[in-house]
């Protein structure tokens, strides 16, 4: 069984799937207009699965499934607000919800697609970039499994020396930042994020209690820039690329022994 690609061709997403379903509280800074592109048209979503919305509201407000919850007034208007998805994890939440509506079967998913952040733009940051995401959903998965998968995944891109730093992410616990040792720079470089999805995210969807989801994500641009020594992201992506240089680039030999 391999990894199935998730259907990510939906740039417009509701705050519900992008944040609320992921147990991201409504006052979380990521939900600020300084970080997220909200939409004037279409400003709100027309439809959400109502019974699931109630369970999400409940877990935010009062907890449940062993959790204390965040104890605040969860507002439907916030969940209805449309945005340009800030991560493809919005798609993962839809996929896992759909998976939970049927008798459970283990799944592995991946996607590589565009995400949007309303951030200041500079040589290494753009308002849009690509996110690579992988997730494995099965009974009895462990943190040890996640670390094993990450080693396998990153070693295929030539990154064999990894270490992991505890981090915070509202929808994963534990959360780990992934660092890879860069032989050229002689230092550890952050290459991605990972974690196990929280029960407050999975159980309201209806997934069985012993099902765990291990997941990781990284940007496509950053490792590419490191690999090819590109210091300005606009030389890689967008309309300011030099067509002459693009034509002269050698083929990508990654993965060829």
């Amino acid at each position, binding site marked *: *069984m*391999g990894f*199935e*690609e998730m259907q990510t061709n*939906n*740039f*417009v*997403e509701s705050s519900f799937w992008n944040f609320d379903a992921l147990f991201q509280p409504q*006052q979380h800074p990521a939900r600020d*207009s300084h970080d997220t*592109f*909200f*939409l*004037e*048209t*279409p400003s709100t*979503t*027309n*439809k959400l699965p109502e019974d699931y919305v109630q369970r999400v509201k409940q877990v935010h407000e009062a907890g449940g*499934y*062993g*959790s*204390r919850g*965040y104890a*605040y007034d969860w507002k439907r208007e916030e969940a209805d607000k*449309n945005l*340009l998805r800030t991560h493809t994890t919005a798609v993962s939440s839809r996929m896992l919800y759909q998976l939970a509506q049927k008798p459970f079967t283990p799944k592995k998913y*991946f996607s590589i697609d*565009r995400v949007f952040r*309303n951030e*200041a733009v500079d040589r290494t940051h*753009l*308002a849009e970039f690509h996110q690579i995401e992988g997730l494995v959903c099965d009974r*009895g998965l*462990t*943190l*040890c499994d996640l*670390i*094993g*998968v*990450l*080693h*396998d995944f990153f070693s295929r891109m030539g990154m064999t020396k990894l*270490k992991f*730093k*505890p981090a*915070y992410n*509202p929808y994963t*616990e*534990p959360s*780990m930042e992934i660092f890879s040792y860069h032989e050229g720079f002689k230092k550890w470089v952050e290459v991605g994020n990972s974690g*196990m999805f*929280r029960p*407050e995210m999975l159980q309201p969807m209806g997934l069985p209690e012993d099902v765990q989801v291990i997941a990781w994500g990284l940007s496509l641009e950053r490792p590419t820039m490191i690999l090819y020594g590109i210091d300005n992201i606009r030389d890689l992506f*967008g*309309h300011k*690329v030099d*067509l*002459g240089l*693009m034509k002269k680039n050698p083929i990508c030999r990654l993965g060829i022994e």
Partner: protein
Amino acid sequence: MPTISVGRDRLYAALGKSYSQEEFEDLCFSFGIELDDVTTEKAIVRKEKHLEDEVGDDDEEVIYKIEVPANRYDLLCLEGLAQALRVFCGFQEIPTYTLADVTKDAILKMHVKKETSQIRPYVVCAVLRGITFDKARYNSFIDLQDKLHQNICRRRTLVAIGTHDLDKLEGPFTYEALPPSSISFIPLKQERCFRADELMEFYKSDLKLKKFLHIIEGSPVFPVLYDHKRTVLSLPPIINGAHSAITLETKNVFIECTATDLTKAKIVLNTMVTTFSEYCENKFVVEPVEVIYSDGESHIYPDLSVYNMEVSLPYLSGLIGVSLKAEEVTKLLNKMQLHANQSASDSKQCSFVVSVPPSRSDILHPCDVMEDVAIAYGFNAIKDKAVIDNKGSKRLASSLTLLSLNEFSDLIRKEVALVGFTEVLTFILCSKKENFALLNRKDDKSKAIIIGNPRSSDFEAVRTSLMPGILKTVAHNKDHPKPIKIFEVGDIAILDDQKDVGAKNCRHLAALYCGANAGFEIIHGLVDRVMEKNGVSFVSPGDISGYYIEQSDEPEFLAGRQARIIYKGNQIGTFGIVHPEVLNNFDIPDPCSLVELNIESFL
């Protein structure tokens, strides 16, 4: 993630140990914080004044900028950070925070008037008795309030903190909401008395405070706190009164947090008192305050009770994937400031009652306890086990099942590249002008997704065609030898009522030729080639078994030199010579032809 600045030497003194920078970085890494920058106070000033070239003195105090997790409010100041690290390293026992024993009559009281429910309904308070400040502690106390205001308080909208010299005030206190014109006091850092409505005008030119005015501006009543003698403590969430300002000499600190969110107010208050009660005469002892609402409801704050959570050993080992012994787990939890007692209730299964202290509001669920065990055990120690067992990789099969749309897109890309076109990857966000006016198109508001809060005009809309990105690429490559042949396969997005979110993506192919002449025939040839490789035959107009072209009338193309592509009876795209006005709008001096079509219909 929030970043805090702490003096290196003060931090090491608080830890009771000096580290080399590398050792300290390793400690941070394993605990889950990050040494972001090493600088000095003067270097920061030099940077602000753009005098980076000036060399600093050797005796400048070294400042560590440390990034802490966004849910660990207890780490937002040196005191909390040092406490957590001391416990983590085993230099200190877990502190126990207690309330001072005060009688029902002696307890300070805060009476809440019912009008406050219109604007900012909650208040929580506490007293730090016999505190000893010095310059560094005082600054840290002020900085902590700033950090809390920035983070959990959401720039004072949810919670605002006021700290006062209790010896300059006299209880009981009242929390009221009054018309702005009836509130007057001397605000902090001012010499004269202001009426609250005047003060709001006055602060419109204050760089720091003007950001908070919107929170109460326009309300018929403003929240205000008074003492027994009608001295104004503060006008939250804007400013404190000058009368009760704390100084280095302050001995007894009265803390009030007014809020629209009670849970967060309690967390903020607990963070303040748990971090700074170590400087009190009775270490880690906090004096409570009774808050009495107008309906008689009364609460004692701060709530320093521990939250008990039952967590089983198999749960912890099962999720981490490492077998652990009960004694080991207890020790690991202690390193993370969590007391754990093995519970006797269930004889078959070993489980713990974990006491979550009031400083650890981040712990919501047993999975948070599990993470703390894993951190204390060491993620990298788990890594060594994972790699040795080669667990995980057996679950990671190498095969991938691609989404048919993406697999098909890749096949199309290869075919177009084989014809000699170079692939480009352009932005999805564009300005309204680029999406419409510059292409000679009118915006009838029926198609484009519009961003509500763009930082600049570059991010006003989601592209409804690939054309603006392709034309901008040509404009940036004017010096490239002609002909330029480029293409893109990517998503555009348009409004669609049928979708839950009201919009959908469409996968398009666009290709452009630019040379000494427009190369219409080259683009027409590409259209035929794409159809051929899709096994679609050229048919006569009206026949729905294949494709044909017919004259079109699109404003972005030159009249009479353009056609729509009809596939199985539906229009899927257009091609033609780009209108000279459009080329001029994009500052392209050479003639171009372009095709753009929706490729989803081939699936």
